[in-house]
């Protein structure tokens, strides 16, 4: 990016970003330095891409007019810790309104691809139309600026995410990669394709330790465009870390925001996996399609139980001191690491483990590995599978998918493989479509067509207003469990103000664990921007830009046909309250009706003027 101002809030048009528009049909490429329209453009990520998506009227995700926008955030590739994010945006094949229109979505992941992409000199790559044949795209730095090249990719067809990355690595040293798996290649029947992003750990060890931009089927959109992979080849361009950023990074590592994610040996909780222990205290760990039973079953996947039989290793992203990854390996007889199995994060572990009735760590790990290798979003996959299992339990006379049941590892494994290969549209197209097809929608655990994360909806009415995934675009998932808030005022304030700020991380290029409690409108971010780019940007201005970006997402949902009746929780939550969850019951129709009224009363007047006429 180029800065001709130190005050981007007042003079956003004096900040320029470099975009390459690539017409996949003709091969034509256009490079341009574009002025920012506002601070959201400057910050980047979905703050910019959603403004561009809003300029198009898209009625079907798989159409040539639907772009795939790949971009970074202002602090991607900077010395600020966790500045590794890449964003993929477009209209989603998976998430859509009942009016039949696709919703705009973004998805993001770490890994080193984002930094390498930034270091090529490019800030944004927009794919238009689709290629007639499979291609991959090489983005390189050069003395005359970034260069983008299309290459034939038949040799990559059918390879797993990891295999594609490792194959490309042989050809492109000093590069990082983004790749889809077979699921994305089979976009016609699999709408939940993810994009895998390569990591230093992966390239050095040869183990499949990718990171994923999973939500909303951006890997399937990439597959539709016939783009199998992206290669970003550039020298590392990290400047020496300034004293100011060093101080911020120390706060990130030791501060309350991320300290909890550190390994237990460093006084942390041991990554997101620790959520198991905490939520189980309330019997709020999803079991068998979000129906906790009030028993000890989830404890089988507690860390303390898994480490008896498996070798666990804590690792970090490139240059990150948080070290939140928990890698699970087979344990050799001498206790050392055997074969690498999977990374245990709370969401995939629960949704491909306990919530499917799988309580064996090795089996859960294998299912996570399959989901990763085929390149599917673990959340959407797990929740759609759990819906199918629940359907079979409720319909013993009319079972589907070979009668698969909760806990039936072998059959579930086969379903994942078949879905990944595109042979199982019932699963690949997500829980909304499957539940409508079967005529039983109450216990399909999605909101607005996107499957919810592994937090019981009884504990999080805020899911209804999340704009791009239940927990990563609305941070109310801990408001009841963590903060004990069960009053309407706290929920209205959370949804309409403080907890929506989490989406700021999906603009600026930082991981949420940089400061998950406070968001990006903070002195820490102010200091990083000052040090990296000599920008004077107040925390208030940043928070206002994040708020506008969130509202724009909400406005865009409404423009794509969502009615207020779609901003709801799965009906089972109200119709059949779960007595086993040991928390105040805020999931009543009365509470939700009052919440709706008050939330919309705040949002509605704020939604005008955010979208093009």
């Amino acid at each position: 990016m180029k800065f001709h101002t130190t005050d981007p809030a007042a003079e956003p048009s004096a900040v320029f970003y470099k975009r390459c528009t690539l017409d996949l049909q003709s091969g034509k490429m256009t490079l341009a330095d574009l002025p920012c329209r506002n601070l959201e453009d400057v910050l980047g990520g979905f703050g910019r891409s959603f403004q561009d998506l809003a300029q198009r009227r898209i009625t079907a995700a798989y159409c040539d007019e639907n772009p795939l926008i790949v971009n970074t955030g202002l602090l991607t590739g900077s010395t600020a810790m966790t500045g590794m994010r890449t964003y993929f945006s477009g209209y989603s094949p998976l998430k859509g309104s009942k009016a039949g229109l696709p919703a705009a979505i973004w998805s993001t992941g770490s890994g080193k691809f984002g930094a390498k992409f930034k270091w090529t000199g490019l800030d944004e790559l927009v794919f238009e139309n689709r290629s007639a044949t499979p291609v991959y795209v090489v983005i390189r730095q050069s003395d005359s600026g970034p260069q983008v090249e299309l290459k034939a990719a038949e040799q990559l067809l059918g390879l797993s995410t990891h295999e594609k990355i490792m194959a490309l690595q042989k050809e492109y040293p000093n590069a990082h990669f983004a790749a889809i798996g077979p699921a994305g290649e089979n976009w016609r029947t699999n709408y939940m394709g993810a994009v895998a992003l390569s990591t230093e750990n992966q390239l050095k060890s040869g183990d499949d330790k990718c990171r994923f931009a999973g939500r909303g089927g951006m890997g399937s959109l990439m597959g539709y465009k016939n783009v199998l992979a992206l290669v970003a080849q550039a020298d590392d361009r990290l400047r020496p870390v300034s004293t100011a950023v060093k101080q911020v990074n120390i706060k990130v590592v030791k501060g309350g925001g991320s300290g909890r994610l550190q390994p237990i040996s460093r006084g942390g909780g041991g990554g997101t996996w620790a959520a198991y222990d905490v939520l189980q205290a309330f019997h709020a760990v999803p079991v068998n399609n979000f129906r906790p039973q009030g028993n000890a079953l989830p404890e089988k996947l507690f860390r303390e139980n898994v480490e008896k039989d498996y070798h666990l290793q804590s690792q970090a992203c490139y240059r990150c001191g948080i070290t939140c990854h928990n890698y699970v390996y087979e344990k050799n007889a001498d206790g050392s690491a055997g074969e690498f199995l999977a990374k245990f994060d709370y969401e995939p572990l629960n949704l491909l483990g306990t919530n499917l009735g799988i309580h064996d760590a090795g089996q859960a790990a294998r299912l996570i590995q399959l989901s990763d290798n085929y390149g599917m979003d673990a959340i959407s996959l797990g929740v759609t599978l759990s819906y199918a299992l629940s359907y079979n339990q409720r319909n013993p006379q009319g079972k589907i998918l070979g009668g698969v049941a909760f806990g039936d590892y072998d059959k579930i494994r086969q379903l994942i493989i078949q879905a990944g290969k595109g042979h199982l549209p019932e699963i690949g197209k997500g829980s909304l479509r499957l539940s409508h097809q079967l005529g039983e929608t109450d216990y399909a655990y999605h909101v607005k067509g996107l499957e919810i994360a592994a937090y019981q909806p009884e504990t999080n009415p805020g899911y209804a207003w999340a704009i791009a995934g239940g927990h990563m675009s609305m941070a109310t998932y801990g408001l009841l469990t963590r903060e004990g808030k069960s009053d309407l005022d706290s929920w209205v304030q959370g949804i309409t103000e403080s907890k929506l700020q989490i989406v700021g991380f999906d603009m600026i290029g930082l991981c949420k664990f940089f400061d998950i409690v406070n968001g990006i409108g903070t002195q820490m971010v102010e200091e990083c921007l000052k040090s990296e780019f000599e920008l004077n940007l107040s925390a208030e201005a940043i928070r206002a830009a994040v708020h506008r970006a969130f509202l724009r997402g909400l406005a865009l949902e409404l423009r794509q046909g969502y009615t207020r009746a779609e901003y709801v929780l799965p009906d089972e939550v109200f119709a059949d309250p779960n007595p086993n969850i040991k928390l105040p019951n805020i999931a009543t129709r009365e509470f939700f009706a009052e919440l709706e009224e008050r939330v919309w009363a705040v949002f509605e007047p704020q939604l005008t003027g955010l979208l093009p006429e």
Partner: protein
Amino acid sequence: MQITVKLSGAFRVGRFKEQVRTYPSGSSIQQVVDSLQLPEQILGIVLINGVHADFTDLLHDGDTLTILPIVDGG
């Protein structure tokens, strides 16, 4: 007074899962937390008899105190 203390997650490492412990009358949750030397950066949720409480709240004989690390998913 007798307090049943339940620990969760990382707090159990080198400590215990559940223990009945004796504290002076009028002790606060913070005093119990201090006595157990729990890592501060992950101190998150405290419950008295299953209900969310504050670290300054006072305990009473026979209470069950649950101490949980702070939770964040991803």
